[in-house]
């Protein structure tokens, strides 16, 4: 299956005592699904994991770190294709730093949203091009409203 995390997409296949990550084979042993989560031994190294699934999302705690996963889709709305950056909360567009068609690099500030009495910089999650900018400065936006569409 194709899984996405942090913009990265991997093809993961599971078999009885192994798994393949983008074709690379790993020996997998389940040491015990128990009181403190699950223990996976992968290529001889032991990892403590807890995975919880909510529909097409999975959150994984692994040796102290947490990761978020989603099923990678082929449709245009899927990660890896293009993605919308949406408003994390209701607010007002304070500044727009980019124009449609402009190509931006990871971490670059695309626009500034004012919400909860604070200003939040919306940054590019990865190198990409700005496909659409539905709003202009001063616009009030609802939570979840698309702010920037990257391709």
């Amino acid at each position, binding site marked *: *299956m194709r*899984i996405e*995390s*942090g*913009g*990265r997409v991997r093809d*993961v*296949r*599971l078999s009885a005592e192994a*798994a393949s*990550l983008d074709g690379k084979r*790993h020996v*997998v042993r389940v040491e015990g699904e128990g009181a403190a*989560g699950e223990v*996976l031994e*992968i*290529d001889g*190294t032991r*990892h403590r*994991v*807890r*995975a*919880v*699934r*909510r*529909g*097409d*999302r*999975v*959150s*994984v*705690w*692994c*040796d*102290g*770190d*947490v*990761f*978020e*996963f*989603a*099923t990678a889709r082929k449709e245009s709305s899927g*990660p890896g294709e293009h*993605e*919308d*950056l*949406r*408003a*994390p*909360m209701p607010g007002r567009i304070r500044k727009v730093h980019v124009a449609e068609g402009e190509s931006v690099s990871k*971490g670059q500030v695309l626009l500034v949203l004012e919400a*909860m*009495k604070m200003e*939040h*910089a*919306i*940054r590019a*999650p990865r190198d990409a091009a700005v496909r659409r900018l539905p709003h202009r400065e001063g616009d009030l936006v609802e*939570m*979840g409203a698309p702010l920037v569409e990257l391709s």
Partner: protein
Amino acid sequence: MIRRLLIANRGEIAVRIARTAREMGIEDVAVYSEADAGAFHVGQMAAAVSLGPGGPRETYLSVPRLIEAARRAKADGVHPGYGFLSENADFARAVDQAGLVWVGPSPEAIEQMGDKVRSRAKMREAGVPVVPGSDPKAATDAELAAEAVRIGFPVLVKAAAGGGGKGMSRVDRAEDLPAALAEARRLAASAFGDEKVYLEKLLERPHHVEFQIFGDRAGHLIHLFERECSVQRRHQKIVEETPSPALEGALRSRMAEAAVEAGRAVGYVGAGTVELLLDEKRNFYFLEMNTRLQVEHPITEVTLGIDLVRAQLEVAAGRTLPDHWARLTPRGHAIELRLYAEDPVTSLPRSGEIIEYVEPAGPGVRVDSGVSRGSRVGLEFDPLLAKLVVSAPDRRAAIERARRALEEWVVLGVETNGAMLAAVLRSPEFLSGRYATDLVSRLPAADALEPPSAAWIAAARAFASAPAGPPRASAGAAAGGPDPWGESSGWRIGA
């Protein structure tokens, strides 16, 4: 002594106050907005009163509704916690006029310290050094521009009614001042309903050190040592420790004296915190005073072996401070880590439902939490989920313990700043103890960690499992409530 205590707050501080109240045989009464009906703090208390529908303004920030709730609950005392109405003099007065015991300082003390311009003047009178700033009378752009030149750039534009760094901005050149003033007035008006602003000399790389002070009605006023609060992000504290690695004996005593002086200047009664800035030349300046319990109060409790909330309730009931408090000496070292619901990369608040939650435990570990498995985290409130407080014989052991405990903490369903806290505990600058308020800004830029193979495989196993998913997933799913992903799936900023 208070019999029934209305705790006019939510989250971890409401729970923490309730615990001490129960220990003292005081009945704990929770309040909650309708949206908070199933919240963790509500289920923890013996009684609970609804504040009705609406957001924070209509509920936890509504003086009439809180007074009415206290009446309905037949409470005879009110503890405001921190934030919300804890530093609102009108609320303190309303509580008093309703014939209830207000667990906090006098409305007058709150007002004098609440207005940053007035409090600076007051401190100057009291001989407490304050950061060089604009004359209290300077208000117009022209007057403030002149003051800026006198003080010397860079300056900070601050809201008089401000706090928590809201609406604060740095100005390096005279030509940028007018715009900054306009902006600051706008933000101040929207945030505090008061557009008054003033200027302060900007100190480069200052230390943020605060002193806990405590006074009683008999006129005792003591300090309970310091808390180092320089690990900040957007003027928001995320890690605090005590003792401060930046102070040595003589400096500590001088700062403690200044803190007590500050309290004395306003006849302070109860628990308060005097925040001081320490510059690179070891000069210190009064920054502001918080006239309430501080988020980071537990590190003082564990190093001194005391219960500050119990003392608040006893002093509110007219008792005097325990005699031996004047002779307390800290033991060991304590560190607090604040866990926020936020995007690990962009640090924006996150919402959702906590599907799996396991707290660290064992030697030297204390957790004050406002959530548990099944908690819904919304964006309308402070994103602080819980605080981890560790104590150990020395600073190094405390850091090692904090690392161990942080790694035990499992929070799934809502993303947190756990990775940033771990980064602080790893940073050589923090380990050295020689760090200032710019520590976080100098950490390696947080970036979405590449998941290890084990995480990819675990995720695949979860996807491959029945829709209900593995035990813990089904637990979360069954716990009901709106699908958190519904709220947040749209924006994977930085994801």
